[in-house]
């Protein structure tokens, strides 16, 4: 069949994809060019590979398995504070890692609340360092992300379908088979792949809760080679290993790309008639309560530790905060300019797989790999440290791109599938369709994407650690330095400030986009 007419041009998205591909592949080429095979992989390198894979698989499986009951409970229950809880679910993912680790230590650490309670019962305290600590932290970070991704799938089932099912007398089991299982079959693999890829490139968690020869990730090893030895050749070789690992994860993610949608539903609030049995209410209540406690306790711990230090923050903290806000805004703008056109192109253009691959390249390069590559490219031309700010913003945007596309593409597909023909028949080509249909109907997803991008960038501690000199710091880096100098009061206060800024950035964008407002 000849190419069918399309409501919007695919060209901007193709251009954006080319830019991203050039940037990432250029960085990869630099890494490969600079890598020094030397004596090949030592036993400690293999140990790092093994540890990286095991912890990522465990983290992804646990996160998604636990997310399904939580998402289902949230999808079919209405209760006071539900909106707040859903917003809160965005928190750990966008929580700056160092801050969250401090919170987890306060709850699950050797001297933490849980250990104290166990001690009161005469039991051994928890041991958080090592594999289970790393997995615990990853589940803490990714359970909410998985819940939100799956909940979004639930909410994309139009309310009319549930109404139809209720009318047919379908009980919870029939609804599971008819509507929910097919939806999960589309969303869960994508969620698994995303969490796996995130955990594969874990850096700060491994730095704080892992470490040592038995719990070092490849990403951490790259940083150590770069920062401690300034051994670019070895950092490049380790980056090569990381590329192979993450390419594997990117392949998984691509295979798990979701298929067709559930069709159009007019925007009525979703109501459920099937789940009003006492047992289901109890189960859903338990799932929501446990998840909320798991997420809230560490956040409460951060707040309690940080409040005393908040009044006497050093000026360096505020300078760093200003830098972080600037980077976050820049990074969000860059991301949206790349991601929205790419999502539209992926949804429309035939044989668009390469655009999707270009978007997923961000998964195939970890921040430290791309940072290493860019450093190698920039080093002979200019002082990399002078470019720390724009490079950090750019890398943050590219890193957020895969998540952005996973959020934007299914919606863009649905909108174009449902309304593309109508738009064409009304001659709404190009601008009008974009302005009146595509962007308004994608607003919730765009807002969510922007919120994630801004907060992730705000809390990022990755590339900046490679590029910044002593005079320049983002807020997370400044906290890291304060901790290194054992100024724990100030670090905790700055952590609370960073938490507030990240949450605020996420909230403003996500709120602005969420128009699926319930009555």
């Amino acid at each position, binding site marked *: *069949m*000849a190419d*069918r*007419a399309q409501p919007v041009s695919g060209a901007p998205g193709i251009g954006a994809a080319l830019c991203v591909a050039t940037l990432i592949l250029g960085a990869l080429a630099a890494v490969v060019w600079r890598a020094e095979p030397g004596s090949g992989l030592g036993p400690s390198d293999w140990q790092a590979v093994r540890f990286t894979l095991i912890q990522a698989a465990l983290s992804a499986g646990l996160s998604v398995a636990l997310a399904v009951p939580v998402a289902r409970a949230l999808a079919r229950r209405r209760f006071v504070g539900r909106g707040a809880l859903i917003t809160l679910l965005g928190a750990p993912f966008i929580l700056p890692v160092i801050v969250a680790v401090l919170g987890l230590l306060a709850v699950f650490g050797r001297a933490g609340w849980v250990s104290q309670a166990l001690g009161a019962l005469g039991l051994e305290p928890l041991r958080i360092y090592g594999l289970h600590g790393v997995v615990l932290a990853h589940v803490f970070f990714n359970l909410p992300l998985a819940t939100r991704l799956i909940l979004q799938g639930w909410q994309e089932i139009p309310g009319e379908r549930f109404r139809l099912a209720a009318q047919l007398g379908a009980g919870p089991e029939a609804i599971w088979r008819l509507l929910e299982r097919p939806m999960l079959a589309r969303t869960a693999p994508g969620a698994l792949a995303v969490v796996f890829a995130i955990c594969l490139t874990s850096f700060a968690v491994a730095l704080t809760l892992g470490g040592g020869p038995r719990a070092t990730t490849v990403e951490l090893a790259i940083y150590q080679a770069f920062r401690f030895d300034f051994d670019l050749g070895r950092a490049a070789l380790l980056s090569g290993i990381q590329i192979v690992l993450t390419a594997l994860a990117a392949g998984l993610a691509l295979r798990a790309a979701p298929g067709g949608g559930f069709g*159009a539903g*007019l*925007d*009525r609030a979703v109501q459920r008639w099937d789940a009003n049995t006492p047992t289901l209410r109890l189960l859903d209540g338990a799932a929501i309560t446990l998840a909320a406690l798991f997420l809230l306790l560490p956040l409460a711990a951060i707040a309690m530790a940080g409040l005393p230090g908040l009044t006497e923050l050093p000026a360096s903290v505020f300078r760093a905060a200003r830098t972080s806000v600037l980077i976050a805004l820049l990074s969000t703008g860059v991301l949206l300019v790349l991601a929205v056109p790419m999502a539209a192109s992926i949804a429309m253009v035939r044989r668009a797989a390469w655009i999707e691959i270009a978007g997923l390249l961000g998964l195939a390069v970890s921040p430290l790999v791309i940072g290493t590559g860019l450093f190698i490219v920039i080093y002979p031309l200019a002082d990399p440290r002078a470019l720390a700010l724009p490079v950090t913003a750019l890398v943050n945007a590219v890193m957020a791109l895969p998540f952005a596309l996973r959020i934007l593409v299914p919606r863009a597909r649905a909108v174009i599938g*449902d*309304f593309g*023909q*109508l*738009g*064409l*028949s*009304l*001659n*709404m*080509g190009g*601008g*009008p*369709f974009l*302005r*009146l*249909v595509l962007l*308004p*109907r994608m607003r919730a997803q765009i807002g969510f994407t922007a919120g994630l991008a801004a907060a992730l960038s705000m809390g990022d501690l990755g590339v900046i650690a490679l590029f910044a000199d002593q005079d320049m710091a983002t807020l997370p880096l400044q906290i890291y330095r304060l901790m290194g100098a054992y100024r724990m009061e100030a670090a905790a206060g700055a952590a609370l400030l960073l938490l507030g800024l990240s949450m605020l950035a996420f909230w403003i964008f996500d709120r602005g986009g969420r128009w699926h407002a319930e009555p």
Partner: protein
Amino acid sequence: MLNLEDAVIRNGVFTVTADFVIDSGAKIAVIGPSGAGKTTLIEAIAGFRPLERGRILWDGRDITHDAPGARPVAMLFQDGNLFPHLSVEQNAGLGLRPDLRLTSEQKKRVHTALARVGLQGLEERKPGALSGGQQSRAALARVLLQDRPLLLLDEPFAALGPALKAEMLDLVAALAQETGATLMMISHDPDDARRIADLAILVAEGVAHPPQPTADLLDTPPPALRAYLGAG
């Protein structure tokens, strides 16, 4: 005048061939067994399905390769004829300007059209807050504003009750009369066809036959149509 010259339209494994002329202002029902290709034929005329062979002409002008919105065609689909996030007024206004940058004079025309289809007072409503009949009326107001010479209906009223459907069809016929538009409507109901279409195109066994008087076709149906109608 709509002219399908030796046209072949492919839809997956089957094709529909069409070679006929439709006079301007005609009201034509497209009837035939399910799955015979009625929608395929309409989609080709609307520009959503390319021709494998042949041409489509409107008043002698070749429109075979024109984009859907550039054709002299207004179309109502089986469903999804309104944007749920836009108000009734905006949905109708799209018929005048697809970018919705309406002048005050154009806004007045939108209100007049909405009043013509009986929706005055509901301009600010979203489609979700309208009844099925009101949604159909909103779409018809847009068709009226589009003012295209060829109106294609792919059973947009199939979900409505018989009385409401008849009411909508009468409204369509009246609107087509007022604007002088040529009407082609897919129909599953012989009574609907008789009601407003003096001519009918039979689509059966991969062929869209030239239009013939509806009464003749329905009174002495060929075998394929007779089996579908179930008439003795």
